[in-house]
């Protein structure tokens, strides 16, 4: 029988070998794939065990923090947002059951402390618990608060304020806001609210007809390409036949022999319409792209949660220079042109920064749990949109708008302001309830005009008022708050 016993033993060894093989497969070789499985709740639950880093405003105001619940292996961290709805946009939320959004999602790796591969392996060997890094943003909490309050008075919409020289985001608000703390309890309510759309960040995702604010881009293209100079005079009749329909100025006013300053100050449609036709598709599209159109903004927000700006066809696809467009109407911000408030803030910021567009960034620095600065935001150039000379000429023209044109409500006593109003008629807009008199009101601009510290776009949906009346005051107050805060 001994021979059989030895064979049986060998067979048992093979069986146990199979067990070791399968254990190795699950625990090591197939482990990464298993962690990706939807049914596997462990990675999420484990993330919950990591104290996620805090998110702070520039002044140290705590925007998001993690609080511990439970003990031992049951211990987990839950996100808290002490300021409620103030920073709901653009910070977003992060909850295990509901996922994450916006800034929280984009900066997830730093916030859970997965920055460097080496240090995390070392930590694991040393038994250090993983801990996330804090991120300080450049958001000015006072200006953010003011912008949200004024916007809530005015209507749905968004305000974006950028520091022209660095691209730092100082203000980014969207109305209607939401309180991230309420996400776990009201998730379906928040997602299904199709009227207010509180989870939708109008600042980075909302696509609106920019109206006359786009004339800044047309003017920039005209000046920088050499098609016109500030002295070039164009005859702009009160009404101009374009592609079968008349393009009209406000009150049908004629502007003969007019130069850029006057045309921009009075927002003369036929003047810019003709300039657009003169420039042609290629030139206009090239300058649009230099200002950031036709691409998703290079901001630190998830790609799915930011929208590109540009001319869209019926299917929502971006049109390119080769596609046929109504140039005259595109030049005054009509056609099928849609822009996000963030995009229009970038236009103002590029002009303010001597023609150089910086990449907009919300974060300012990453700080580890011991208080050491891990990394600081390094401002980087998105594009050289126009020459310094062109930028200076545009600034002069935009100052005229605020000093004596449609944007006088944006004036700040003692501070030179440059800007441009915009009022796009949006009759029958279902988002506004389908009324016939609704406008998309805009103001973009920067201050001080001679030493720009802040560039802002304010946009209000579904209003019967004009950009100069409802958006310009928001610009003025937010700009003032930011300038005062920096003194």
């Amino acid at each position: 029988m001994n021979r059989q016993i030895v064979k049986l033993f060998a067979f048992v060894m093979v069986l146990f070998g199979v067990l070791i093989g399968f254990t190795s497969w699950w625990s090591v070789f197939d482990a990464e794939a298993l962690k990706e499985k939807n049914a596997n709740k462990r990675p999420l639950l484990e993330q919950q065990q990591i104290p996620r880093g805090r998110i702070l405003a520039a002044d140290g105001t705590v925007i998001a923090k993690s609080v511990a619940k439970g003990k031992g292996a049951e211990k987990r961290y839950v996100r808290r947002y002490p300021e409620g709805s103030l920073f709901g946009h653009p910070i977003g939320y992060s909850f295990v059951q509901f996922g994450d959004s916006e800034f929280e999602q984009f900066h997830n790796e730093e916030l859970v402390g997965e920055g460097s591969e080496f240090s995390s392996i070392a930590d694991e060997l040393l038994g250090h618990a993983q801990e996330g890094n804090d991120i300080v943003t450049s958001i000015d909490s006072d200006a953010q608060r003011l912008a949200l309050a004024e916007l809530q008075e005015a209507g749905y919409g968004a305000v974006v304020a950028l520091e022209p020289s660095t691209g730092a985001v100082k203000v980014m608000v969207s109305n209607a806001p939401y309180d991230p703390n309420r996400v776990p309890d009201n998730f379906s309510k928040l997602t299904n609210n199709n009227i207010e759309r509180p989870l939708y960040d109008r600042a980075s995702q909302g696509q609106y007809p920019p109206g006359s604010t786009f004339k800044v881009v047309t003017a920039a293209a005209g000046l920088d390409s050499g098609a016109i100079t500030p002295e070039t005079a164009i005859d702009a009749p009160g009404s101009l036949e374009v592609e079968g329909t008349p393009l009209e100025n406000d009150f049908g006013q004629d502007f003969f022999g007019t130069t850029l300053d006057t045309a921009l100050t009075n927002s003369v449609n036929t003047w810019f319409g003709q300039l657009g036709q003169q420039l042609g598709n290629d030139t206009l599209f090239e300058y649009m792209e230099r200002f950031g159109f036709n691409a998703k903004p290079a901001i630190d927000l998830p790609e799915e949660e930011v929208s590109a700006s540009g001319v869209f066809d019926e299917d929502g696809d971006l049109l390119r220079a080769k596609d046929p467009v109504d140039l005259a109407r595109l030049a005054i911000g009509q056609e099928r042109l849609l822009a996000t408030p963030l995009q229009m803030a970038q236009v103002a910021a590029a002009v303010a920064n001597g023609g150089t567009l910086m990449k907009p960034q919300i974060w300012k620095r990453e700080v580890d749990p011991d208080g050491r600065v891990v990394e600081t935001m390094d401002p980087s150039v998105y594009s050289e949109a126009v020459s310094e000379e062109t930028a200076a000429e545009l600034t002069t023209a935009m100052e005229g708008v605020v000093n004596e044109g449609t944007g006088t409500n944006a004036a700040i006593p003692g501070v030179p302001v440059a800007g441009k109003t915009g009022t796009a008629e949006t009759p029958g807009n279902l988002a506004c309830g389908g009324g016939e008199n609704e406008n998309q009101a805009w103001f973009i601009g920067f201050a001080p005009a001679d030493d720009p510290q802040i560039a802002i776009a304010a946009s209000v949906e579904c209003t019967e008022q004009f950009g100069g009346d409802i958006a310009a005051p928001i610009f003025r107050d937010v700009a003032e708050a930011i300038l005062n805060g920096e003194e």
Partner: protein
Amino acid sequence: MTSARNRELLALVPVAALLTAGFAAVFSQENEQLGNLSLIYGAYFLALCLATHIFLRIRLPDADPYLFPLMATLTAFGLVMIYRIDEGLARDQANWFVLGLVLFALTIQFLRDYEVLERYRYTIAIGGLLVLLAPRLPGIGQQVNGAYLGVKIGPLAFQPAEFTKLAIVVFLASYLREHREVLIVGARRVLGVTLPPLKHFGPMLVVWGASMFMLVFIRDLGSSLMFFAAFLALLYVATGRFSFVVIGMAMFLVGAWFFASTVPHVHERIDIWLHPYEDPQDSGYQILNSIFAQADGGLFGKGFGEALITVPGGGPLLPAAQTDMIYALIVNEVGLFGAVGVVLVYMLIAARGFKVALLAGDGFSKLLATGLTAVFVIQAFVIIGGVTRVIPLTGVTLPFISYGGSSIVANFVLLALLLLVSDRARREAAEPAGRTPALGATA
């Protein structure tokens, strides 16, 4: 042959160290600072092991020196894992460990002449099978996950299958010792296949019937598989006919296939095994989370007490972590390396157990040692294989590690029988030739 016992004593030292270190690790995880309680537990455990060792020194001086330390290693490891899951469960387990040692000592004390078992083989077999029915009896039977595995009389609960496995091994060892010659000689070749003689094979068919019966009536796929595999192992060792094993396996598969398509519980188990992702939140939850826990462990594991067993503020993440799923938790906490260590201990037990069988002088001792070792390691294979998706997941315990009184106690009786066989075999092997070799020693 006191050197054997000295080696046993030496081997117990790392066991006590392992237990102390394990408890210390769990303590430091849960209490931030280290109490001296871990040392006290370690000391208790070492004292119990020493007492057992001294008892063995007196009663079975020649028995295999490694079997007891190896099993104590598993028990110590199991205690640490269970303690890490729940302090109360660990206390129960420790009590059962003591009870197991008592039964271990009693078995050695009163069954020195274990041949008496042969005389009562039919009584033992019928008793073992009858006790299996108990879980279906109204009032005392318990159903767990669709299988009738447990009996509860007042505060006393136990799983009869753990004891039935001993009864079946004793019966088969005895029956095969007597009939192996005729099974070999009487075999006929039919169409090129060697068939056992029907007349002597009758009782063997009863074992097959019992396995099928367990499948249908008790719905215990795991025990059924374990018993039948042990039966095939013994049949093979006794007759040397591989064809018998193939025929037996075919019979089992046909029966299992038939019942898998008619008994919903069995069918479901196999379905889950093949397609766990079809219902990941319900039927596939346990096996999937077993695998996810192993993936979470990786090469070195998360450390004692670090793995997640329950969803914070919710249900279990690793259901039945202290019993069926304990191997998954081991992989999770001590990684592939720790788990391989555990499997190696089972391999060493297999090696020592089969060594006992090789040394044993008479046929009954040989078959008994083979059967006991086989049923023990097959049980380990069935549950580890289930947890790692090698075979369908069934509810048997991981011997000496899983939480469960019946399992601990029955396995200590198993160990006692193995040591009894070993003591005699090694003494006879050491004695100068003079006694006639017992029947079957030359096969």
